[in-house]
């Protein structure tokens, strides 16, 4: 068992040692159910798919994911455990990945526990389960992107609330970048290539196509590279700020 796995296990267990994990999962499930069945008109649409379920995820994650991410490094710095952790014989990489993957796994667990919605769709009709599976993975990747932003900003401060607010703000920007309304405002006076570049950085651009069943490896690749970049930034921030 490598150090990454040991840290991963410790972090994941510590989520479940406090009510945090349970509260997160319960609220995630309740809000998801409410949005899908009431707001999304899951029944009224008369279609056997999970589109209304996934459509709300970018907005749901906007508040749920930063809440998980905010303590990731801010607490370590506040309590001084970062000094303990980083003077143990481990790589910084293992510490960053272990902590990140544990939080990502928690979101994954919450996402898996939405399976009754999937069963409902299968009971009522005959949805394309391949599309649903891809959308689940896509949603998890998108949550991972939010989480990577949160991890990096959590490393910037000792105060989890500041980390939360900063993370929500940055995530809003990345959600809005792909929003047709915003892009429409730019059309006509900004070169198309720049509009395309901006829109390609947006979460919605990539997530929309994934959730609609358009399977394009590039969309997953986008989230993968996005996560890697923010985690690398976390490493730089931790190196610079751990003393203060």
């Amino acid at each position: 068992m490598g150090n990454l796995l040991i840290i991963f296990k410790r972090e994941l267990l510590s989520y479940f040692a406090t009510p945090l994990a349970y509260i997160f999962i319960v609220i995630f499930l309740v809000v998801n159910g409410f949005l899908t069945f009431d707001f999304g008109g899951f029944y009224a649409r008369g279609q056997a798919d999970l589109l209304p379920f996934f459509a709300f995820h970018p907005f749901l994650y906007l508040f749920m994911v930063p809440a998980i991410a905010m303590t990731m490094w801010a607490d370590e710095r506040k309590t001084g455990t970062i000094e303990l952790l980083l003077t143990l014989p481990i790589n910084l990489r293992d510490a960053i990945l272990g902590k990140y993957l544990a939080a990502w796994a928690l979101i994954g667990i919450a996402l898996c526990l939405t399976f009754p919605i999937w069963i409902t769709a299968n009971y009522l009709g005959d949805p394309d389960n391949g599309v649903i599976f891809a959308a689940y993975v896509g949603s998890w990747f998108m949550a991972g992107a939010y989480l990577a932003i949160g991890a990096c900003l959590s490393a910037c401060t000792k105060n989890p609330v500041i980390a939360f607010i900063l993370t929500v703000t940055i995530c809003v920007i990345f959600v809005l970048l792909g929003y047709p309304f915003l892009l429409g405002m730019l059309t006509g006076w900004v070169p198309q290539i720049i509009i395309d570049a901006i829109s390609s950085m947006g979460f919605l651009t990539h997530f929309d196509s994934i959730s609609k069943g358009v399977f394009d490896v590039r969309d997953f690749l986008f989230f993968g590279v996005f996560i890697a970049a923010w985690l690398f930034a976390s490493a730089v921030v931790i190196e610079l700020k751990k003393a203060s």
Partner: protein
Amino acid sequence: MIEINNLTKNFDQFTAIDDLSFTVKEGEVLGFLGPNGAGKSTTMKLITGFLSPSHGSVSIDGFDIRSSPIEAKSLMGYLPEGAPSYGDMTTLEFLKFVAQIRGYRGEEILMRVKRVLDEVELNSVSQQTIETLSKGFKRRVGLAQAIMHDPKVLILDEPTDGLDPNQKHHVRELIKNLARDKIVIISTHILEEVTAVCSRAIIIAQGRIVADGTPAELEARSKYHQAVSVRLSENYDLAADLTGLADVGDVEKDNEDDMVFRILANGGNSIFSQVSEIAQAKNWPVTEFHVSRGQLEDVFRTVTQQKQGAQ
């Protein structure tokens, strides 16, 4: 062996550690002293690789902390200032986690954990979450994780801070027992601790070494070293009887007690026999008569304030 060469650490414009060089050998217990803000904790953070130096190097048994951090860190056990640990874990879970990171697997994990639980007497709280523990227990949890892998080098930042006298005594005994074939560096501002456990003391002020030696050597630098302390039953002019003795210096009155006088020795030479002969010959009204040792506190104040005065 720990070799520290020209270690310097700047924070923005402020130089916390200024060109520090020293080596520590096996079997030495080094007490690291200095006023608050002198750079004790920063030095420890540099030695353990938590911070990177601006200049200079630290090597642990030949492993440079920057180029071979994993090897160097494996040789060290470290108790950071304030003994941080993961509050939401139980003592047992936390120590198991540290044992795993230290490379123990399978049954060995529990064996190691049990050994340190016994060693620092933590068995009674092994199932409690660390955040519910008292300060003394938290400190011991920190010590337990530091000695988990029986490290060659033990670095303890204020290990007895916040402990009651019994616990302090216990921790000091522990350090003494550990020290035989190891290197121990402890930072402290409790000077009695240095005399109690350290074989060597370094005093730093404003990031520089201002004194380095065995506790006895440092005590000898005190102006009270070899001084004779006398308590009189009535007023008597001691100084008049002592003029002409080359080794005898000033006579000082005690700050707290009007009848206690200290006869200082010039150059650290023993003056006890000379003074006692005069006392008998002149029939001093003496009720107490003894040689005082040099006081570390006095040396500490002198060397650290000289440093500030020089700035």
